């Protein structure tokens, strides 16, 4: 259990750093989405099913959708 959690946390931090590094904004958005998804799983491990549901529905689905729309309306690459 602890090993799974450790791996998940490391993955989460790595994707947050990826969101920091990527020049392509769509990739950065997807990395942020992965952060949210893993956070939802961690919420579930922490015995918070309500929050896990909310994070998965809002953080991973809706926010990503909104970001993708915004990137499509503006510029895709960071200068």
């Amino acid at each position: 259990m602890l090993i799974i959690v450790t791996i998940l946390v490391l993955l989460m931090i790595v994707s947050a750093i990826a969101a920091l590094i990527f020049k392509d904004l769509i990739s950065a958005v997807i990395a942020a989405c992965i952060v949210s998804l893993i956070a939802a799983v961690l919420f579930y491990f922490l015995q918070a099913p309500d929050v896990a549901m909310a994070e998965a529905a809002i953080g991973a689905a809706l926010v990503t959708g909104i970001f993708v729309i915004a990137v499509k309306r503006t510029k895709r690459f960071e200068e």
Partner: protein
Amino acid sequence: MRKLFVILLLLIIAGGITLSLKEIPFGIPKTKIGDHFINKGVEETGSVNIVTSVVVGYRGFDTLGEITVLFAATIGLGAVIGTFRKNSVNREVEAASLIVYTGCRFLFPVILLVGTYIFIHGHLTPGGGFQGGAIIASAFLLMYLGCSNKRIKENLSKTVEMIGGLTFIAVGIIGLAIGQDFLFNFLPKGEPAELLSAGIIPIVYIAIGLKVGSELAGIIDNLIQKS
């Protein structure tokens, strides 16, 4: 230069927080109010899901404030986006393929049903108004992605939103009139773990679900249509 400065700042904050985290060990027993909610929650609010009884019952005022935050953001987004409606180009949207189209048409009612189930059963199982509302809104997001010719009727969503908000406030005011306290749970609490139990909690959660759902859908609608 800026980066170095920021890293230095973050290190200072990190140091402070690490020192103060020593007071909060991981996995300690519950706090005073948490204990009270778990021991008395079912009895006092009638909801089996204690998180729901905290969100709608004990801290219902926060929830009212929170749907107001979302309402303000929706209106503000409309005000910001809506001002360049006239010179925006009518974007030609490429139609999705038949499989995607049919899939979306098929999934849309199912997702709506799941969302409704989640907020109606908020006091029995994990879930509730926010989660249900968010799922409903994601159904509309799917609809926009798959079937670009479908649109939300703006007046309808406004009306649903208004009904949701008004129901919340009306329930609160009735509680004030009957029990001297805003959001007083004036309905019989019934048998715990039944669908019709917990007094006003299901009503309020349905109102929240409708409001959150229509607001989030409205945000997506505004972003896709008008920007």
